[in-house]
C-alpha cells in the first residue's frame, strides 16, 4: 500500500495557486524528495499533508486516512520536522522531549526510554539537561529531528532539514536521516532546494516548480534523461575508424571527436569506463588522459524548468524567515 497518495491536490491563496493539481504516490519505506526553488509549493504541500492546511481541491491520503476527514488519525501516525526552529528555548532538551511525548500520548515510562534512544541517535543525550538557549544551530536541528521521532511515526516529514546549516553539520544530518531509514524502516518525505541533498538521500525525487510536478523519478533515472555520463579520452592517435569502433562498445551512446579528444556519452559511467579502457587497449591504442563527468541534478533541473535552480530569489518573507532562523541559530 502507498504511504502517501495524492490526487489533483491543489491549494490556492486567492489568485495565487501555490500547489496546482499535484498527483503522486509515496511507497512504504521510501525516501521521497520534493525538490524545487523557494516558493515552488513544497512547504504548502507538506502543510496540507500534515493537516495544517485544508486543500482547495483534490485529495490526499496518508496510510489510507484522508487528511481532512481523518485529520486526527493522520496526525498520530506522522512526524513533522518543520523548516523553522520551533523548539522552546526556555526549556531544556529533555523538557522539550517530555512535552512532545505528552502531546503524542506516549506513556511516561515508555517516553523516558524512547527519549534516551532518540537523543542518543542524534548524539544529544549528554546535552539533554541543558537549556536549549545554549544549543548551537546544528544541535537545535537535531533536537527538532529527535522530537519528530518520539512517537515512532510511520511517516516522517522533513521540511528543508538542513536549511542554514554549515556543510559539516549538513553531512552529519544526512547520516542521521540515512540511519533512520535503515534502522527504523521509516518512510521519509523531505523537501529541499539543495540538489546534493536530494541526490544523496532520496530514492525518488519530484521536481516541483510553480506548484506543478515537472518530473518524478529516481535521481539516477533523472540524470540519465540528459543522455547519461560523459567520458573524455585523449588517445595517442585518432581516426574515423576508432570513432566507429568506440561507438560499437557496450553502454556507449554517442561519440564525438575533437582532435585527439573523444567525447563519449555513456550510460552508467562507472561501469562503462573500465570496459571502454579495456577495449581500447585491445586495439593497441595508448590512453593519454581520461575523465568521467557525471551530470548533476542541477543540469537536470535546467533542462526541465528551463532555468537554473540557483537563479531563484526568495520572497521578502522567505528572506526574513531565513534571517530570523539564522539569528536564533547563532545565539
Amino acid at each position, binding site marked *: 500500500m502507498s504511504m502517501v497518495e495524492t490526487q489533483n491536490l491543489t491549494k490556492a491563496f486567492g489568485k495565487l495557486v501555490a500547489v496546482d493539481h499535484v498527483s503522486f504516490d509515496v511507497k512504504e519505506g521510501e525516501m521521497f524528495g520534493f525538490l524545487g526553488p523557494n516558493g515552488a509549493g513544497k512547504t504548502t504541500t507538506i502543510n496540507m499533508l500534515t493537516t*495544517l492546511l485544508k486543500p482547495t481541491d483534490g485529495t490526499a491520503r496518508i496510510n489510507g486516512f484522508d487528511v481532512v476527514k481523518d485529520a486526527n488519525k493522520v496526525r498520530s501516525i506522522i512526524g513533522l520536522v518543520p523548516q523553522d526552529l520551533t523548539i522552546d528555548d526556555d526549556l531544556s532538551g529533555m523538557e522539550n522531549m517530555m512535552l512532545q511525548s505528552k502531546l503524542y500520548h506516549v506513556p511516561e515510562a515508555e517516553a523516558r526510554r524512547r527519549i534516551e534512544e532518540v537523543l542518543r541517535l542524534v548524539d544529544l543525550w549528554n546535552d539533554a539537561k541543558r537549556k536549549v538557549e545554549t544549543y548551537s544551530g546544528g544541535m537545535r536541528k537535531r533536537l527538532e529531528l529527535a522530537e519528530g521521532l518520539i512517537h515512532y511515526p510511520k511517516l516522517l516529514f522533513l521540511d528543508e532539514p538542513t536549511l542554514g546549516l554549515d556543510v559539516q553539520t549538513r553531512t552529519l544530518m544526512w547520516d542521521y536521516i540515512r540511519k533512520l531509514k535503515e534502522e527504523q524502516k521509516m518512510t521519509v518525505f523531505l523537501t529541499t532546494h539543495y540538489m546534493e541533498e536530494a541526490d544523496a538521500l532520496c530514492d525518488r525525487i519530484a521536481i516541483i516548480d510553480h506548484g506543478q510536478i515537472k518530473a518524478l523519478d529516481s535521481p539516477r533515472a533523472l540524470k540519465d534523461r540528459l543522455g547519461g555520463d560523459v567520458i573524455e579520452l585523449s588517445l595517442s592517435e585518432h581516426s574515423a575508424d576508432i570513432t566507429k569502433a568506440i561507438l560499437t562498445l557496450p553502454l556507449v551512446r554517442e561519440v564525438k571527436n575533437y582532435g585527439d579528444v573523444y567525447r563519449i556519452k555513456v550510460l552508467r559511467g562507472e561501469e562503462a569506463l573500465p570496459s571502454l579502457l579495456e577495449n581500447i587497449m585491445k586495439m593497441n591504442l595508448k590512453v593519454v588522459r581520461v575523465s568521467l563527468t557525471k551530470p548533476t541534478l542541477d543540469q537536470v533541473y535546467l533542462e526541465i524548468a528551463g532555468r537554473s535552480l540557483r537563479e531563484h530569489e526568495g520572497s521578502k518573507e522567505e528572506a526574513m524567515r531565513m534571517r530570523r532562523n539564522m539569528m536564533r541559530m547563532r545565539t
Partner: protein
Amino acid sequence: MISETWALTVREVKKWVREPILLFMMIIQPVIWLGLFGKAFNLTGLIQLPPNLPPQFREMINQMLRSTFGGTTDYFTYMAAGMICVIVLFTAMFSGMSLVWDRRFGFLNKLLAAPIPRGSIILAKINSSVMRGMFQAILVLGIAMGLGLKVGDAFGPLDVLGILAALALLSLGLSSMFVAITIRIKRQETLMATVNLLNLPLMFASSALFPITQMPDWLQTIARLNPISYGCNTVRAFILHSSEGLDLSSLTFNFEVLIAFALIFSLAGIFFADRGLRKG
C-alpha cells in the same frame, strides 16, 4: 484533553517562573501602581474636615463618603480593591502575546500537527494566564495590606476565599477574551494596538478607581456592562466585610454575572480554536 492541556500549561508556567526579572517586575509593578494611584489620587482626602466640626456633621459626611465609596471612607482601601482587579486585567491582556509568539516561531504549527484537541492549546494559555493573574492579585492584596489597607472588622479567611473565587472567574473571562481576540492575529504589533485600545477604557470605565454613581449617565451604562466592575464590587465587599454582615443578594448577583462572563468567553475561545488557529 486534560493531560495535553496540563502538559502545555506546565510549559507556560515554567517559562515565567524561571525568569527572575519577570518575577521581580511582577512584584514591583503593583507596588508602583498602589503608590501612584492609591496615595496620589487620594479622592477622599480632598474633603478636609475642620477639627472643630460637630461630631454629627462629621458622621454625616463620612456616611456620604461610605455610600459613594462602597462602604469605606479611605480612598486607598477603595482603590486597592479595584487595583487587584486591574492587575488581573493587565495580566490577562498579555495572555494572547505568547500565542502570537508561538505562531511566529512555528511552535504553534508543531502543536497543530500533533494529535491533540485544538481547544487544549487555547485552554493552556488561559490556564497559565489565570494562574499568573491570581498569583499577582494575591501579592497585591498582601502589599496593599502592608501599605495601609483597612479591612472590615469581620474580615476572615472565608472572605479571602471569596476574593479568590471572584478573581479566578474574572481572570478566566478576561484571559479567554484576550486569547480569543488573539486567535487570528499574526503580528505582535497588531495585538499591542488592540490591547492598548482596550486596556484604559476597561480600567477607567469601571468601579475600579472611581465610584460608578459619580460618573455621567452614558459612562455609567458602559461601566455597568464592564465585567471588571462586578469583580471590583465583589472584592471590595469581601475586603470591607464588617460586623453588619455581607449584602448577600448583591454578592450573588455579582457572582452570577462573573460566572456567565467566564463561561461564555472560555467556551467561545475553545469553540473558535479549531477554525481560528489553522493557518491560511
